[in-house]
């Protein structure tokens, strides 16, 4: 399943309202984009889904259960995250994959890496020596190694050069085609049209538009992205 419901979710930081009473539903098996101008609160909202942060008020539900009633470590295994910049946390590529899945067998690691377009030869490479695009793919494989039901994607291609960005996006599209639930933060209307099924448009922390991507004015040129 993995359906998220947001009920009157607000986030206040240092007296500023970053997210303002957002209520929405994230449908399972689909890719939902969070779009809007920078500073609209997209990334802040994304961090609530795996409880890297908690809302100041309001609730998030995963399949009907309030997030703070679930075991947070279990929740984070169900809801994986790929950040904006690739962040390496271990010495080698295979150790990266084993960070969240210590039992991961070598064969399975190779499979996962192949799925994100990383050659077998890189398995034992030091993770510090990877290019930006390779590192971001390893981050994706690392998230997949935990076998999440939902993938949070925080501008996953924005820090990459155009060629690497295109390739990573193609990999992501392939994964989404397999029915993984995804929540994508993106500032590119084209990318949202290519990748997402639904979109939530945020402006100044408020939800101003939501629905299937093709019906959203903001990503179809009317809102001016």
């Amino acid at each position, binding site marked *: 399943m993995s359906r998220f419901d947001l009920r009157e979710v607000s986030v206040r930081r240092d007296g500023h309202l970053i997210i303002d009473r957002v209520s929405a539903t994230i449908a399972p098996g689909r890719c939902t984009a969070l779009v809007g101008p920078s500073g609209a609160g997209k990334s802040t909202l994304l961090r609530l889904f*795996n*409880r*890297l*942060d*908690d809302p100041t008020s309001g609730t998030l539900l995963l399949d009907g259960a309030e997030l*703070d009633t679930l075991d*947070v*470590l*279990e929740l*984070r*295994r169900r809801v*994986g*995250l790929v*950040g904006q*910049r690739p*962040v*390496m*946390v271990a010495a080698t590529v295979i150790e990266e994959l084993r*960070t*969240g899945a210590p039992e991961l067998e070598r064969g399975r690691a190779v499979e996962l890496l192949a799925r994100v377009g990383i050659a077998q030869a890189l398995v034992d490479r030091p993770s510090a020596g990877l290019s930006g695009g390779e590192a971001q793919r390893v*981050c994706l494989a*690392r*998230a997949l190694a*935990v076998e999440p039901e939902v993938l949070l994607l925080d501008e996953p291609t924005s820090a990459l050069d155009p060629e690497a960005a295109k390739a990573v996006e193609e990999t992501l599209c392939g994964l989404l085609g397999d029915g993984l639930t995804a929540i994508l933060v993106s500032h590119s209307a084209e990318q949202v049209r290519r990748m997402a099924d639904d979109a939530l448009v945020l402006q100044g922390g408020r939800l101003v538009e939501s629905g299937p991507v093709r019906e959203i004015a903001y990503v179809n040129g009317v809102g001016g992205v």
Partner: protein
Amino acid sequence: MNPAVPEWTGVALSVSLVAVAVVIAWRQQLGLAKEIVIAAVRAGVQLFAVGAVLLFLFQHAGLPGGFAWLAVMVVIAGQVAGRRGAGLHRSRYVATAAVAVAAAVTLGVLILFGVVQSAPRVVVPVGGMVVSGAMQATGVTLARLVAEARGQRAVIEARLALGLSAPAAFAPHRRELLRTALIPTLDSTKVVGLISLPGAMTGLILAGVSPEVAIRYQIVVMYMLVAAAVMAALAAAELGRRMLFTGAQQLR
């Protein structure tokens, strides 16, 4: 009276050394003369005051008074070391607890085994050394902890996002910061006697005790200080790490 210990006239004469320094500083317009006078006067007044307190403790307050004095030192040390962890949630509480744990364990073991006497004239100065060593280790540990949590925020959160618990997500950083915090103590322990004659030993030798006795005392003091520093650093890292994260394993 032991001829090696200065009389009060000797103390008065040693003021002339400070006077020389002040005159030089003043003639060369270093802008330090006033500072030197203030520092010298402060040190004198503080030592007179401490001497008076110790005299009172040793003669009237007994062991409970000695431990009360020690507790005051722990609180002051906690405040000082806690400032090094500015930005950490409840850093002064963490620092005070770390210093207290290190002092209690170290002194407790020494007293329990009868290595040092449980008399105020021993507990207060030896406790002072322990608290001071623990304070330094705690301060460095907390400063590194805060710096690491700030600088490595993305890495720590990446591990949390993979479902690692807060202790697991922070473990590699804990290792690094403990190493950094303890290197100064370990280095100075390695070269003890080669580069510097430590305070306790110097004091004993000056007071006319034979070097053979002085080194015995110094060895105990040194091991005690190493233990105090390690325990303080461990306690500060552990308690500090708990303060870095919320109950929901979120980095604050």
